[in-house]
């Protein structure tokens, strides 16, 4: 990734006063149901933040609001200092927000290389003339190809680059998805249960990979594995029935009585 342009200012070291992501009073109602209820988050640059909570707590809905899949009923989302509440997902991606999904989402019929190349191409989207964009073969965009190869190396998929993504084993597909996320060169990465359905070893390997390739990014993580959360997070936010129950360092959250009652002690 050394060749990457500094498109989103990702090298700037943030301070606590300069949150990369801030939500203010986010509310999402589906008819009578309040899925997300007045959630305000401040995530400083470089932090690893986990969102935990029982099923139906509104975690994925919160992700949908942050990434623009859903429009909030009330409240706003600020990203890298600007209000992005009204922007479409791809516009947020262009500003440096990236996301993986609870169920792996890759371009199944395309090769592993093409998966990563598409993401790298998107990251360089501004640099092409319309004629190039429409008519020049993708194989002649040397910079994009180089970006893609670098990412494949980092996620250790270079030797499988020619295979169709749909034929990869589950763990490899997860890695490919992290590669896709990496290739978009994000400041903020939202990972929705990156280790769901994995064995202990796979979980460890995946988190090691996340820690390795996404180390310099801000991470927002939905995770069920509480041990893992307490292990990797800088701070943890606990959601319950759509609203924030507690927020703090892993130790603080683990010690919180409400959290114990509602979640940690209750369902586990």
């Amino acid at each position, binding site marked *: 990734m050394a060749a990457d342009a500094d498109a989103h200012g990702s090298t700037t070291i943030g301070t606590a006063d300069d949150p990369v992501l801030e939500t203010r009073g986010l509310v999402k109602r589906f008819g009578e149901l309040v899925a997300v209820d007045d959630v305000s988050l401040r995530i400083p640059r470089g932090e690893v933040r986990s969102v935990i909570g029982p099923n139906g707590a509104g975690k994925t809905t919160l992700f949908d609001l942050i990434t623009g899949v859903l429009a909030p009923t009330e409240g706003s989302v600020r990203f890298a200092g600007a209000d992005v509440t009204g922007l479409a997902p791809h516009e947020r991606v262009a500003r440096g927000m990236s996301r993986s999904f609870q169920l792996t989402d890759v371009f199944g019929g395309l090769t592993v290389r093409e998966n990563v190349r598409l993401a790298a191409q998107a*990251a360089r989207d501004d640099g092409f003339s319309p004629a190039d964009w429409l008519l*020049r073969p993708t194989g002649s965009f040397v910079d994009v190809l180089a970006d893609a190869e670098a990412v494949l190396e980092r996620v250790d998929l270079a030797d499988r680059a020619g295979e169709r993504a749909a034929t990869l084993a589950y763990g490899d597909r997860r890695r490919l998805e992290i590669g896709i996320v990496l290739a978009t060169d994000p400041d903020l990465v939202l990972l929705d249960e990156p280790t769901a359905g994995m064995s202990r070893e796979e979980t460890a390997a995946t988190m090691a990979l996340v820690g390795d390739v996404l180390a310099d990014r801000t991470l927002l993580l939905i995770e069920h594995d509480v041990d893992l959360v307490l292990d990797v997070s800088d701070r943890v936010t606990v959601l319950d029935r759509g609203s924030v129950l507690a927020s703090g360092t892993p130790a603080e959250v683990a010690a919180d009585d409400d959290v114990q009652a509602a979640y940690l002690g209750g369902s586990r």
Partner: protein
Amino acid sequence: MASALVEQLLNGLTIGMVYVLLAAGLSVVFGVMDVINFAHGELFALGAYFGYAVATVDGGGFWAALVVAPLAVAVVGAAIERYTVRPLYGRNPLYHILLTFGLVLVLKDGIELVWGPRPKELSAPAVISGTVEAFGFTYPRYSLFVIGIGAVLAAGTWLALNHTRYGLVIRAGSMDREMVTYLGIDIDRYYTLVFAFGAALAAIAGLVLAPRNGVDPGMGDSVIIPAFVVVVLGGLGSFRGAVVGGLGVGVVQTVMRSYVPVLEGLVVFLLMIGVLLVRPQGLFGDPEFEEAGDLFTASGGVLTDARRRQLGVAVVALLALAPLGSGVLYSPFLLNSLFVTVLTWALFALSLDFVMGYAGLVSLGHVLFYGVGAYVTVLVVMHAVPSVVLALLVGVAICLPLAWVIGQLSIRVAGVYFAMITLGFAELFAQIPNKVTQINALLATPWLPTWLRLPALRGNRGLFGIDPVYGLTGGPGVGAVQVVGGVDLLYYVVLAAVVGSYLLARRLMQAPFGSVLQGIREAEQRAEFVGYDVTAYKRRAFVVSGGLAGLAGGLQALADGGVSTSYLAWIQSGKVIVMTMLGGMGTLYGPMLGAGAFFGVKEFLLPVTEQWQGVLGVLFVLFVIFVPEGLVSIPATVQARFAGGPSGGTPVEEPDPVDREVGD
């Protein structure tokens, strides 16, 4: 005048009730099974014909028919579900379009075979004939009968859906099929039941309409589109929507016919487009509705790129040399007409695949661009410059912005709604040649320049007798120049344009633009989340596609020596979808092969049997069940067989685990 309005309202409710009966079945079948059933209109016709048969037999009669015909059609419906629809569950609803399109042809030909093409008469019993007076108004008894029976059936259906165990399971199934199966319920049995029930409702609709509208083989065609409009307007899968939509469409259509006759033929589609633009899920549709099911796009195959290129070059070379055999091996007509038609339709199918195979947009209104391209090309030749090249270019140039506008309005709605809104636009345009006078009267205002008015389009008669030339303003005329063996030079013009368009499309697919489209085809959400504006890409693909379809229409019009309203008929959209799926979506050459196969089979069957449409229908049905990836997948299948690969079954690629996020 009050009595006139009351009477019109009653008329509207009468036809509206028939729409309700039709739409209720369609909508429930869609809601529960995701099946887009184009054959519903033929079940409606079958109801009328079975009714006719029972009513005219000794000891029969109208009332007996009212009982027997729906039951008989229900049996037909159950058989259709069991043997043709069931193998397709879990696939994208698109496959049902091809399947039920085939069933339409089979059923229609079957009806003609048994009962002949002549319309039949079925009279209503005396007790529901004539008129009845009440409150100072005169009502036709039959209208009251239709409204009554429709209301009873609709209420019964509502009760069954809401207050029986069956209804509960069916409604639950329409919301979450998997959950129902987890509960250990054999949902397949319910599917057969639902399909049969929908068929019975359609049959009743056909039968109660028969004494008023007669019984003829075309009756299914005439109701299927309004019925779909009602379903979409009300919201797919919503019974309430079907009722409100059916009655609403019936009343609005009837009242507007009297008071605003210029909107005849337009009002239904305007209504649908309007509703969908405001509420993309229809009046009572579920806003979170998402289409599921796997779309099998053909891929790769056994041939290497180099081998495929060689094959392509060989085909083009053969086509280029074909005129040498004309007059010796075959008549020049084969090239001038059949080959030219195959080529232009190959281009049309290619254009559709660009949006359907790559951007996942099933456009049922693609004929709009084909027709507009054809009309504009002909008009340019007639009124501006006679040049073939310029006229084609103007045709394309008009289609591009038109596609942009229609894409802009349509792409915001998804799936079946997109198919129907594009159909709506196409039907609006299809009315233009018949309404030039009225439209010009509207445009005849002082502040609009006179050149904005439409030229004469002569309705169904079409515009013929054009005299295009190969030069810019003069030069040899198209009809006059032949190359060899009586083959028109136009054959080469068409060949060059089609091959050129294919190469352009291929180039686009190899460039970043096309790579994004392929990404969207594979995983739309992923494409959005690596940073592509998916909607904008779809719209751009739609524009390219519209331009190519316009070129196809223009070429065909030049070959036909003119243009007429069939160029805008929605059935052409259906045909081109069938060809694309026959050949194999998601490859550029597959749909072109599909066009060749379509016309080839038709040409072969035409002299063999009068029932060629029915045979064609059977082929479609078998095809969609056994070769879902299209013709282009056959070599790989054959290879797999010989290599001792998985024997039996179809080369269905292992379906991805549901590629969609579910709630947490």
